Every structure is written in C-alpha cells, then in structure tokens.
C-alpha cells in the first residue's frame, strides 16, 4: 500500500510540476506580446544567444559533419555504397544533427547562464527590486529571453547546417577522394526544402524550451549558492531531455508516413 502511495505521490508531484511549468510558460508568452517591451534587453539576449554561441555551435557542427562523412564512408564502403556519403551528411545534418547538437550545446551554454543569472537575481532580491520599481520581472527578464531563444536558434542552426555540410565536403573531397563538383551536386540534388525547414522548426522549439527551462529554474531558485547551482543543473538537464523528446515529436509531425 505504501509503495502504491509512493507511486501516486510521485505521479501527482510530476503533474504539479508540469502544471506549474505550463502556467509559467503561458504567463511568459502573454508578456511577449503585450507592451511595454524592453528592446535593450531583447537585443542583449539576441547577441548572447545568436552571436556569442556561434563559435561553439559552429565548431560542433563542423566536426559533426566531418565525423559523419568518415563514418558513413567507412560503413557504406562495405556495401559499395560510398556515393551515398554526400546524401547522408546533408540529410543527417539538416534534419537531425544540426538542430540537436546546436540545441544541446546552447542548453549547456545559455540555459545554464540564464538559470544562474536569474537565480542569483532571485536570491539577492534583485527580482523583488524589479517589482518595487514597477517593472514586471516576466516582461523584463523572461520574455526577452524566450523571444531570443525562439528567433535566434533557427539562425544558429542555419549556420550549423552550412558548416556541417562544409565539414562533410572537406573530408569527402580532401580525404576520401570525391570529386568536388559531383559531391556538391549530390548534396544539392538530394536536399529538399522540407529537410531544412523541419530542422529550423526544431531549432525554434529547442530555443524556446532552453530559454523556458533556464528562466523557470532560475526564477524559482531558493536559498543561496547551492540553490542557484541546483537551478543551473536542473535547467541544463531538463532542457536537454525536453530537446530529445520534442525532437521526436517534431520529427513525427514532419516525416511520419
């Protein structure tokens, strides 16, 4: 009986957490579309997510493309299907690896920093200070971050797609001996608009989730340094898990037959 009560308690706790998160997200989204807006805050977040994440996301995508070319060549050569390398690289990068790798890297970089910054503001009463200065913390802190996550991640993933394909091209042509023109032609021929669009939609969803988990965990952090540390860990872990779950859902929506 106690075991059943334990399961029930965990399940109710989970539902409660989902409800609190959904309510937080709904309030934050409602503040994204209602004035006043804080363009300086939005610009700062655009720069932080979109510009300062470029090196880490770019490098990840570049090396992912290079490794993918090597691995697929090594695997496909067993079936004399080496010609499929360009196709595998471009489809894998645009549909999956570009958005997922970028999402996970940004979750580590931005999700953690959002949770730590807002969490520190919470425990040092800076969030309360915003309220006393007639500034809604959701509008000033949360809405700009969600907007930046939603809009900047697709741009980052677009760059990641290009660099990932470029990485595959460099290995394909420079190391595996493919003809440059035919590699590019293969890449271009197989690529469809939907492949890129689905990746960009995923990126938007991931960006929103990363910012949401960073803000939610930071906003509800308690205590001192330990509470902020816990909020940061929770933000990264929960965003990473949500990225993988939502990746499946978006893939199902776009590609399930």
């Amino acid at each position: 009986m106690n075991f059943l009560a334990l399961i029930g308690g965990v399940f109710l706790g989970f539902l409660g957490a989902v409800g609190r998160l959904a309510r937080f997200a709904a309030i934050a989204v409602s503040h994204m579309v209602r004035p006043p807006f804080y363009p300086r805050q939005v610009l700062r977040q655009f720069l932080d997510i979109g510009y300062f994440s470029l090196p880490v996301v770019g490098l990840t995508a570049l090396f992912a493309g290079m490794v993918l070319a090597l691995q697929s060549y090594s695997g496909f050569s067993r079936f004399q299907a080496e010609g499929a390398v360009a196709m595998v690289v471009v489809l894998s990068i645009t549909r999956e690896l570009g958005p997922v790798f970028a999402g996970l890297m940004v979750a580590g970089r931005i999700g953690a920093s959002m949770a730590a910054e807002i969490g520190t503001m919470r425990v040092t009463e800076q969030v309360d200070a915003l309220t006393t200065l007639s500034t809604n913390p959701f509008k000033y802190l949360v809405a700009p971050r969600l907007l930046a996550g939603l809009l900047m991640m697709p741009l980052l993933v677009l760059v990641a797609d290009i660099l990932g394909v470029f990485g595959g091209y460099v290995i394909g042509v420079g190391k595996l001996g493919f003809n440059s023109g035919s590699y590019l032609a293969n890449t271009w021929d197989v690529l469809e608009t939907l492949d890129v669009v689905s990746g960009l939609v995923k990126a938007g969803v991931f960006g929103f989730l990363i910012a949401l988990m960073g803000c939610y965990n930071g906003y509800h952090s308690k205590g001192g340094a330990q509470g902020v540390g816990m909020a940061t860990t929770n933000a990264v872990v929960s965003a990473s898990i949500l990225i993988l779950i939502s990746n499946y859902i978006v893939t199902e929506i776009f590609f399930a037959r």
Partner: protein
Amino acid sequence: MTETAPKIRLRDVHKRFGPKAVLNGVDLDIAAGESVVVIGGSGSGKSVLIKCIQGILRPESGSITVDGEEVVGMGGRQIERVNAKIGMLFQSAALFDSLPVWENVAFGALQAKGMDRKAAFDLAVETLSKVGLNADVAELWPAELSGGMQKRVGLARAVATEPEIIFFDEPTTGLDPIMADVINDLIVTCVKRLGATAVTITHDMASVRKIADRVAMLYQGKLIWVGPIADIDKSGNPYVEQFINGRADGPITMDLRR
C-alpha cells in the same frame, strides 16, 4: 473632528509559509508623512510584512490598503501602479549587477517612466550627490562598490523617482557604526525632503531612535506594542524592554540547544 485616512492600513493580515504562521493578524495604520519603524527578532516576519504591502507576497487573508486602494488580490498592472508610488532600500541593496550604478539609480525613471537616457543619467548623478556620492561613481559597476556605498546607491535608487512611500529593509545591517549613522542621517534627510511616508524594519536600536516617529514591535506574527518613539523606554511591555535592551533573559526565548 475629522480623521485623516491613513496612507497605509493593514487589517487582520495573515500570512503563513507551510505550517508556520509568519503574520498572524496584523493591524497597523500609517499616516501620510509618518515614519514608522517595525522592530522584532530575526525571522519574526518584518520583511514579509513589507513584501505583502508591495504585493510581492500575497497574504492568505486580511486587508492592506495604500491610499485607500486594496492591494490584496490586485493584478500585475495595478500592483505596478501602486509600486510607482513606492521606493525601497533592500537589506542587501539588491543593485542590478548587470547595470552600471547610474542605470541602477535611474532604473525607475528609465523603465517605468520612459525618461530618455541623457536625462536619466543627469537625474542619477544629481540623486547620487544627495546621498554623498560624486559623479565618478555613476559609471562604476555595483561589484566595484563597498557595502556602505552600495547601501547609498540603493538609497539613491529608492528616492530617485521621489516616491510617496519609502520602505527601508534593515538599512544599517552589515555596516560599521559610523557608516550606519551616515545612512540613518541620509534616510532622515531624504524622507523629510520628500515628505514621504517611511516604513523601516530593523533590529538596530540606534536606527530606531534616529528614524522613527512611531515604533511597532512584531512578535510571533502580531504587533504586540505600537507607540511613539518617545515612549519606547517606558513602554511597560516586557517584550519591548527585553528587545531594546538586548537581554537574553526575558519573555522572548530563543530555541537553543545546550
């Protein structure tokens, strides 16, 4: 005889965190232009009281009015409107560490009142001068300031928009006695200059004697004594006497394991 409506009125305010009742039926009237100091031990609910008035925390029951307007249950926009009348100095100063000092001081004017940045900078420098800080400080970051300077910047931020009500949360905690006295003097000067209603929470009896027109003592969620500062030494209340004299022996007991 006509009675003036109080600036802030609390009636039977209850607030609990889990099983612990922090405010347990608080009644208090604060007149316009009056300086009330709430004293009480650590964890007695003084900060909670202020946060309830500002709408940061919502009491379970009771009524809190500011200028006759009920604050309990107010929506976000209305709370922002009420808070536009209020300035607050936080215990830790709570300066925004991602903004330079001048933007901290002029934050209310910049964000809530839409002042342009040049005018806001001038306002910040002028307000900083009123708390004894020169213009060089304006461009510094909060992390570059000492504790006393942070408190003064926090005070400048609290008074920059010339609020009608100012809250001071433990304004002298963590400061040396001389700096504490400087802060007390600045509080008295700023409040008098603005003609503001002030509510201060502190355990520092030097602050109480300097700042207060009236004193209220909070103990176990209730105000157990409210009276003019002149009467505090002859309150006849054993709790107040123990507190103001800082004695370990008396009706207020600390749960210590020996």
